[in-house]
């Protein structure tokens, strides 16, 4: 199982900056992880005291892991085909996602739109805040210290390592989700998709394009509708 973006899986890329961790690396091996010990102790104690059952916990984790990019992709595909929905998504995102039967709980969703002049990328420098209600569990690289530190400091270098090069005429806008808001990127609709159905368009929307480390897939990548 790999959480690496596709552009890295086959590429023995050169390490020009030896002192930099790659944004997709999880934590280095060998470090003691007190948090795992703490989690296990807390979990066993809560189950022992009957606060919740082991099966309830298993089902909750299963539900979280079952979420992937499909729901986010459907939301984007609708925004691409329905201008009124797109406007609602950008101005009243909580109301827009309720149409998909979603509620965000205490966190509010904010959708940021990629345009021909602005590219958005999302990070949480403090921890790993992520729109889990929509996208499920974040990939390991999103939670890595390398991604969290470098994205605010050198976003274009990080994007280049994910295979996305953007001209200096475009603005790269980083969103550090430090507080109560969660972010979803609305990627640009790829060219050559006129007349496509929502279902076909949804196949072009990758999880990575919703985080902002990639653009949506091109029609050639999925073989057309």
């Amino acid at each position: 199982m790999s959480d690496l973006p596709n552009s890295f899986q086959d590429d023995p890329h050169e390490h020009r900056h030896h002192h930099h961790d790659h944004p997709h690396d999880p934590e280095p091996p060998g470090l003691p992880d007190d948090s795992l010990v703490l989690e296990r102790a807390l979990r066993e104690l809560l189950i022992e005291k009957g606060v919740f059952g082991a099966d309830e916990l298993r089902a909750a984790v299963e539900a979280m892991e079952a979420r992937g990019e499909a729901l986010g992709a459907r939301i984007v595909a609708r925004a691409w085909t329905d201008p009124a929905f797109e406007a609602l998504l950008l101005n009243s995102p909580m109301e827009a996602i309720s149409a998909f039967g979603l509620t965000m709980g205490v966190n509010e969703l904010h959708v940021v739109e990629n345009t021909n002049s602005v590219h958005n990328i999302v990070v949480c420098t403090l921890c790993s805040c992520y729109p889990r209600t929509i996208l499920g569990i974040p990939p390991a690289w999103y939670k890595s210290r390398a991604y969290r530190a470098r994205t605010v400091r050198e976003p274009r270098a990080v994007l280049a390592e994910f295979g996305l090069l953007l001209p200096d005429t475009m603005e790269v806008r980083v969103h550090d989700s430090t507080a109560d808001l969660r972010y979803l990127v609305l990627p640009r609709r790829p060219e050559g998709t006129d007349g496509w159905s929502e279902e076909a368009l949804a196949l072009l929307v990758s999880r990575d394009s919703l985080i902002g480390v990639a653009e949506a897939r091109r029609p050639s990548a999925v073989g057309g509708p």
Partner: protein
Amino acid sequence: MSRFAVGDRVRVRDHVHTGHRRTPLYIRRRTGEVVRVAGCFLNPEQLAYGSTGLPGVTLYRLRFAQRAVWGDSYAGADADTIDIEVYEHWLEPAAEAVT
């Protein structure tokens, strides 16, 4: 009532604060612009210690030029920006700021 409005220039304070805080170090003493008044939220600095988090605090989305945050060593376009949310008690009007 919120102290700041969209378009206001504000500076992130650098006051010493023990305990939980959600204002990262890299944005301290930087000046940016309010792009959105995000609303009133329970104070996470109090919630972290079991308090109710009341009175709530107003949260602002601020936009900073990356060049203003990192200086000349920022290796990107001059137009690049960073958006970050900061609670009201961490902000002061840019005009009042003492460098």
